[in-house]
């Protein structure tokens, strides 16, 4: 909402308050003023000029040589390129030395040999947007009506010296969608009076009711419809003050009748519509629901297909307006209009909203109906428009209004006790200060004991419950005056849940190993939504996505992490280590909330360790990610419960991927990104992991108890085994552990060899075994006895020979 300071001053005394001060006060009281525009501040030396003579420039076809009276001793010669300039016009002249918006300075110049002392201006050159300039001045220079004097300040005449406050209104404050509404707000803030217009049109004997009758077939959608008839109007431009006020309010002037309806809309917040009475096909107005598929051409010359959830104004047969949204081309006021029907109605917000949404038509009118207009202004606005049409368009206002329907004008009463008010705000207000705030708002009050009952004017539809009164008091009393306290009462300790703490530990662990935390989008494309999913389901789809790229909910974190790795690779960052902990979403069926599971995923590519001048360089490989995951398991107490088994899920390298099992339940995968996929997304050899973080954290060990530090020395034995190449180390380890029993305290692989010195199809795997007894020092004989058992078991169960 654009509020003209000069216009507003007609309803409330603004003396002593600058536009900037006013903006600050309005903002602090609850309606945010986003900006204050002062067009004249970037212009100077612009006056009204009278074009005395105009002739063709002797040396240029497209230029005019004008002699212009600018109120000085001698007229000045100005060269003007506008097609529409002519003698006898009053125009805006930027004199030599003038400044126009954009710090454009006007200097004396010679144009094709002819002297030019200034510039004749268009509205755009004076900072008015083209969309707001009247159509006849959308191009070319502007002409003043004849009531100006050469030499007077053109900016003042055009109300460019105004200040325009841009109000950003929250949905509850639709009362401020009008100049009068803003005036009430400002009056309350400044503690001043509101001066309202008192429309009292002089009426002819002829009755409006003789020209029109009204029937409402849909009273729930349209509880009240008021019409007045104004005859014999002369269509022409509206006066300059009205045009300029409208432009400052962001409305384009058209002609006097249309401008008047818009002016009253801005003034009262009550949308009006003017029909050409003679173009209505009948003497009756019927308000009804549209028929499904009914066609109607709105006044923007667009054919609309209507439906039964929309309301139309008809002449009894065909629609003449889409109620509350836009009029029809068939009954539009035009140059030849003589008799006008003014519509002032109350339409239900929901029905207007439905139509304006369906046709993507948001008008000043629909915006107000949707939020609810003041029932008490329907009649006043109609009278005001009729009065202005008599004054400014020479019309004859017929007697009375035609009124159909009935609308409650009852004012709500809301009560609150002083105690409640002070308790909620934490203040110590006295009743007289509370009463004074409501007096400033022009709300009637009645106080009984400590309870105050407020009669809420119909203009403030947002106030309905005691809490609304609390807010009115708080905002006008000033939030700055509310003290700073902290909640009282029993103090309960705050903490993270074990799960939340576990998640933090996982994150810190990964960051400690060199992974950077990524956050990627949850929404993805159809293709990405199914890639790498641990569990394949139909992905959850948005009903109206904004793009194909963000149309589905992801089922794996990996696709976007891989994208992030590729992004970094493409920017000279060859080594990338990223992880993410986020939810994935599993479809549980139509209209059922998807199952959200928290996952931990990572991508790593390039060098894992690099210390060049010492010749150390280690590229990322499968065992890098495996080590990370094993370390993670150790960190959260799952080290003995995770196992890895060879797997080949889609998207992974079939020979370098393992399924991760927690107590033999699958919890994810680790492995290399399939090289062909890597090529497709343009990422280097990359290793991935994705794990069910929620499952792992819920399984994580929470108790911790101390185990005694060994008091007796351990004995180590190394063995190198020759086995078939296909035998997995874990299988050998399992045999060793089983046979080693309780004396075997650790088994570690320390060498793996496969190559020239080995028989074809064989490999050597070397283990370091440690034996210890917590109760005593082991003898060599005792160790040998167990160790022999291990070797026999290896031979029998894994066909493993000791390497000679």
């Amino acid at each position: 909402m654009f509020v003209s300071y000069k216009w507003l001053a007609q309803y409330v005394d603004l003396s002593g308050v600058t536009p900037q001060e006013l903006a600050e006060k309005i903002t602090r009281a609850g309606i945010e003023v986003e900006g204050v525009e002062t067009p004249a501040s970037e212009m100077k030396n612009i006056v009204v000029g009278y074009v005395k003579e105009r002739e063709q420039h002797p040396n240029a076809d497209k230029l005019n040589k004008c002699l212009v009276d600018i109120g000085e001793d001698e007229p000045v010669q100005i060269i003007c390129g506008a097609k529409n300039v002519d003698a006898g016009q009053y125009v805006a002249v930027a004199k030599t030395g003038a400044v126009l918006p954009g710090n454009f300075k006007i200097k004396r110049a010679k144009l094709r040999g002819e002297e030019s002392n200034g510039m004749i201006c268009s509205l755009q050159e004076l900072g008015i947007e083209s969309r707001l300039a009247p159509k006849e001045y959308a191009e070319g220079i502007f002409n003043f009506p004849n009531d100006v004097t050469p030499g007077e300040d053109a900016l003042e005449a055009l109300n460019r010296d105004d200040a325009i406050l841009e109000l950003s209104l929250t949905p509850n404050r639709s009362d401020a969608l009008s100049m009068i509404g803003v005036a009430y707000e400002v009056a309350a803030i400044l503690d001043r009076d509101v001066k309202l217009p008192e429309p009292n049109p002089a009426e002819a004997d002829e009755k409006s009711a003789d020209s029109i009758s009204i029937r409402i077939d849909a009273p729930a959608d349209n509880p009240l419809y008021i019409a007045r008839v104004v005859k014999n109007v002369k269509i022409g431009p509206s006066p300059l003050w009205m045009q300029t006020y409208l432009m400052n309010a962001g409305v384009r002037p058209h002609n006097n009748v249309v401008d008047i309806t818009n002016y009253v809309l801005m003034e009262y917040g009550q949308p009006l519509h003017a029909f050409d009475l003679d173009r209505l096909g009948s003497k009756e107005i019927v308000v009804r629901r549209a028929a499904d598929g009914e066609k109607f051409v709105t006044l923007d010359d667009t054919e609309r297909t209507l439906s039964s959830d929309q309301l139309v104004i008809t002449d009894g047969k065909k629609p003449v307006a889409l109620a509350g949204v836009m009029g029809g081309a068939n009954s539009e006021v035009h140059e030849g209009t003589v008799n006008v029907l003014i519509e002032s109605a109350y339409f239900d917000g929901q029905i207007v909203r439905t139509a304006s949404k369906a046709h993507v038509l948001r008008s000043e009118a629909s915006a107000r109906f949707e939020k609810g207009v003041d029932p008490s202004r329907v009649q006043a606005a109609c009278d005001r428009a009729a009065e202005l049409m008599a004054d400014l368009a020479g019309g004859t206002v017929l007697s009375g209004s035609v009124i159909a329907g009935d609308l409650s004008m009852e004012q709500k009463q809301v009560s609150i006790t002083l105690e409640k008010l002070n308790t909620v705000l934490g203040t110590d207000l006295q009743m007289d200060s509370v009463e004074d705030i409501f007096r400033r708002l022009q709300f009637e009050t009645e106080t009984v004991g400590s309870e105050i009952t407020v009669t809420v004017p119909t203009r403030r539809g947002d106030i309905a419950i005691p809490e609304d009164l609390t807010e009115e008091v708080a905002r006008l009393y000033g939030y700055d005056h509310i003290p700073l306290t902290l909640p009282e009462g029993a103090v309960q300790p705050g903490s993270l849940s074990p799960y939340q703490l576990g998640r933090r530990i996982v994150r810190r662990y990964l960051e400690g190993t060199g992974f950077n935390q990524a956050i990627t989008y949850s929404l993805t494309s159809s293709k990405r939504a199914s890639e790498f999913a641990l569990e394949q389901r139909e992905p959850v789809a948005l009903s109206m996505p904004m793009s194909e790229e963000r149309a589905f909910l992801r089922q794996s974190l990996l696709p976007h992490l891989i994208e992030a790795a590729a992004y970094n690779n493409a920017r000279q960052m060859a080594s990338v280590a990223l992880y993410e902990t986020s939810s994935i979403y599993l479809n549980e069926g139509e209209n059922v909330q998807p199952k959200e599971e928290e996952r931990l995923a990572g991508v790593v590519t390039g060098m894992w360790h690099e210390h060049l001048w010492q010749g150390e360089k280690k590229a990322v490989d499968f065992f890098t990610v495996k080590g990370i995951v094993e370390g993670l398991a150790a960190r959260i107490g799952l080290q003995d419960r995770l196992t890895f088994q060879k797997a080949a899920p889609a998207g992974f390298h079939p020979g370098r991927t393992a399924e991760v099992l927690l107590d033999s339940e699958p919890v994810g995968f680790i492995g290399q990104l399939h090289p062909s996929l890597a090529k497709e997304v343009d990422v280097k050899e990359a290793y991935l992991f994705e794990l069910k973080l929620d499952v792992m954290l819920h399984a994580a060990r929470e108790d911790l108890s101390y185990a005694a530090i060994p008091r007796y020395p351990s004995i180590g034995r190394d063995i190198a085994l020759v086995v078939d190449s296909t035998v997995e180390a874990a299988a050998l380890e399992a045999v060793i552990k089983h046979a080693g029993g309780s004396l075997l305290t650790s088994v570690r692989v320390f060498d793996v060899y496969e190559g020239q010195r080995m028989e074809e199809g064989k490999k050597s795997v070397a283990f370091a075994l440690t034996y210890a007894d917590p109760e005593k020092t082991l003898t060599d004989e005792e160790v040998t006895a167990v160790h022999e058992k291990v070797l026999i078991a290896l031979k029998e169960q894994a066909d493993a020979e000791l390497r000679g």
Partner: protein
Amino acid sequence: MEQQLNELQSQALEKIAAAADLKELNDIRVAYLGKKGPVTEVLKGMGKLSAEERPKMGALVNVVRETIANAIEEKQTVLEAAAIEQQLALETVDVTLPGSPVKIGAQHPLTRITEEIEDLFIGMGYTVAEGPEVEQDYYNFEALNLPKGHPARDMQDTFYITPELLMRTHTSPVQVRTMQKHGGRGPVKIICPGKVYRRDSDDATHSHQFTQIEGLVVGENIRMSDLKGTLDVFAKKMFGADREIRLRPSFFPFTEPSVEVDVSCMCGGKGCSICKGTGWIEVLGAGMVHPNVLEMAGFDSTKYTGFAFGMGQERIAMLKYGIDDIRHFYTNDLRFLKQFSVHE
């Protein structure tokens, strides 16, 4: 004989003084004090002496032996020190060469902000509540005093999945769910962080996905002044002890009264580009929980009151670290992320 011993001593001391290294010194020790050395030789000649001279000479021999041994000892200490010095000189490295790198990963700045806020409020007795990102219309809107068709729903353009299911537009549904779990009994004191979604085209200041953290306190006698005091603590902790807060009336369907909360700008009110010359930066929205919301969540609104507040971590991070484009948070450029590995 006495003379012989004295000569021997001075000769030995001379050689000891001249010894250049430990080996040479050891040779001297063997030569003079060894079993075949001259001192031993002298001792062997003692048999020829008289009974009177014998103890006298014996003492003298001991003195000479001791003198030589002490001299060797002293020299040895000196030579050993020199040897160590020499060894250390050989082992000297160029300390300006780069060290073996230890990788330090960075926490995402949004997580950093989230955890900082969580910890602040945990310290004030709050717990952290979380909930689903795909929500029912009921929890995201209706239970928050936003019935279907309410104009204020336009304030939050929503990604719908079905007419009843949507991507949550704020973390407020977690507040509703938590309140419901309390079965109408206070106090409730929670902070709700999480991802939220709105139908916005991504640009420098808009993101279709972003993060929010909301707080909720419900109890008997919870006051607006408590909200103000709590947010004052928050602002001072997050932005600096010298910061102030300012409440401006606003509108949210789920709170009444509702306020926007500004934090004083780091320019100290002088006016800068961040606060657009106003001296204040809008940081969060807040208010007293609307009685309809309390009632729908099972609380008696005549007995209980509450306050709620909410903010976007992106905005806080942008202000705190001077980040100029919201898309940086979701691009995962390492050059961006790595800047947040530093602990403040």
